[in-house]
């Protein structure tokens, strides 16, 4: 109980990098964000996981001042977003979803000109730009045109640009969307480096794997609300059994299979496309044995560990990547 109160009080302390209470955003009649409560502590990597249209980007935009909340409260780096936009923007870095690098400037110039927006002295900006180009492995491209960079390189340059002012908080909106696996892994490495350096990161993603790998804590969003939040492994543990069996077959067979699975498995969900049944269990052998005994035709069975995707499916009845 004492701990509970302490935690309550903590919500208002300046030590939190980000505090949202009842945060809302409407556009006319449309409510994009319907009342979010969350808190992010220094040094964390905090994720917003959810399908497209869940309200993740709107939430990010409110954090970096591109969108003004229509309800609730939002504190960023200890300052209320109302009336502190410049002071907040001075202390955060933003990696936007869409590339908005300055095409008329070369790679290094993008960083230098950006540094000027923060009133960085020229010498300091030059030194910082070269450090950052080294960090994102673009030193050889320093004098190239932005248009010559690949998608992954542009994303890394956006990350470098977001770090020019040595921000307390880095906001990354879908940092790996549209990247090939190799480029994605490189971006993940850079994000892990930042967390190791003690930076606070918040990111949005609709990749379960990304959230599970990078985030200390995360919230799962759907339809403008937070469905659930916590530590990735704990969320999986709390909400779904550790093993999943996916059965694929014709609709008739799946219909027959369902009661059998319900008998033996902890939980049964329909796959997002309706062509599969997912059985969550602690003992997959027992479930498989029971299915074999029943004689129902199963075309294809996949065994895997459960993950955040399954948590999302269980709580919303929807798939994350649609």
């Amino acid at each position: 109980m004492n701990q509970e109160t302490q935690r309550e009080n903590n919500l208002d302390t300046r030590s939190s990098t980000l505090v949202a209470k009842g945060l809302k955003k409407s556009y006319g009649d449309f409510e994009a964000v319907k009342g979010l409560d969350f808190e992010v502590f220094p040094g964390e990597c905090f994720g917003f996981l959810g399908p497209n249209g869940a309200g993740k980007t709107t939430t990010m935009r409110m954090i970096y001042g591109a969108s003004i909340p229509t309800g609730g409260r939002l504190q960023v780096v200890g300052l209320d977003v109302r009336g502190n936009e410049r002071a907040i923007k001075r202390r955060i870095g933003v990696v936007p979803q869409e590339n908005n690098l300055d095409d008329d400037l070369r790679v290094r110039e993008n960083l230098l000109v950006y540094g000027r927006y923060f009133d960085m002295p020229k010498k300091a900006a030059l030194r910082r730009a070269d450090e950052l180009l080294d960090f994102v492995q673009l030193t050889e491209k320093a004098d190239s045109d932005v248009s010559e960079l690949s998608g992954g390189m542009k994303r890394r340059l956006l990350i470098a640009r977001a770090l020019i002012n040595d921000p307390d908080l880095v906001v990354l909106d879908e940092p790996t969307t549209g990247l090939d696996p190799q480029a994605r892994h490189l971006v993940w490495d850079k994000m892990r480096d930042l967390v190791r350096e003690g930076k606070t990161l918040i990111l949005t993603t609709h990749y379960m794997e990304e959230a599970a790998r990078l985030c200390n804590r995360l919230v799962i969003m759907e339809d403008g609300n937070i469905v659930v939040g916590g530590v990735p492994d704990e969320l999986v543990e709390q909400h779904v059994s550790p093993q999943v069996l996916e059965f694929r077959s014709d609709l008739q067979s799946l219909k027959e299979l369902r009661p059998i699975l319900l008998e033996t498995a902890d939980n049964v969900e329909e796959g997002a496309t309706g062509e599969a049944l997912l059985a969550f269990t602690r003992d997959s052998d027992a479930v498989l044995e029971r299915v074999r005994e029943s004689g129902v035709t199963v075309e294809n069975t996949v065994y895997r560990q459960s993950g955040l995707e399954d948590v999302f499916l269980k709580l919303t009845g929807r798939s994350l990547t649609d």
Partner: protein
Amino acid sequence: MGSIRIPSPRGAFRVWQRNATIFRKYWKSAMFPNFFEPLLYLAAMGLGLGAFIQQGGINGQTYVQYIAPGLLASNAMFAASFESTFNTFVKLRIDRVYDAITTTPVNPEDVVAGEYLWAGTRAALYGTGFLAMLTILGFALTPENPLISSWWALLIPPMLLVIGVMFSVMGTLFTSLIKRIDLYAYYFTLVVTPLFLFSGIFFPVEEFPAPVPLLAWFTPLYHAVNACRGLANGPDLAVLGDVAWVLVFTGALALVPIQIMRRRLID
């Protein structure tokens, strides 16, 4: 949310500086058309049409002398109009340059103010080159009757900066209201071209029947042309009235596009 935003000079300067950095790379190719176009008008209208204008010209000046200062003003209008329409549109909606800038301590209102200043600067740069050319040509071709005859002409470059800012405010207002780039055809056909033709560059509007001179008085390029002509042929204290008109009009309108552009960048 409803409060009126005033730009920060430092933020505006950063945006101006960004444009200057890019201009430094491309200035040669960017300058040339703007520099060459008024010369074409001067040759076609001044020499071609001017040959048919009776001896004595207009107000005791040859036709070329009459139109040259007005072309300085219209050149500033064109330079600032292109900057605040097509260029600003691309930065706002296509390249999303402003989105990137406004996630830094530079706010949308600073961006717009910086663009005003940049458009003015560009107008002044082009105009100064053209002014130098007119002065040299005038003294070289007809030394007894030069195109630019007064030391007051040294005040033309700062005047062109002010004229550039004025047309940048107008162009930015239109940019802040449209969603499609093809709508600029309306702005140029219905605003810029009529101003160019009917602001006293090619003929004195004062001598037209009753409502015309009054209508002209309410339009911006008319005063810009008067100011440039007065400075080119000075001393002429009537210039002060035109400068005051330009300053009041620009000042009264400048904050409007700033508020609208802010809503385009922050929802």
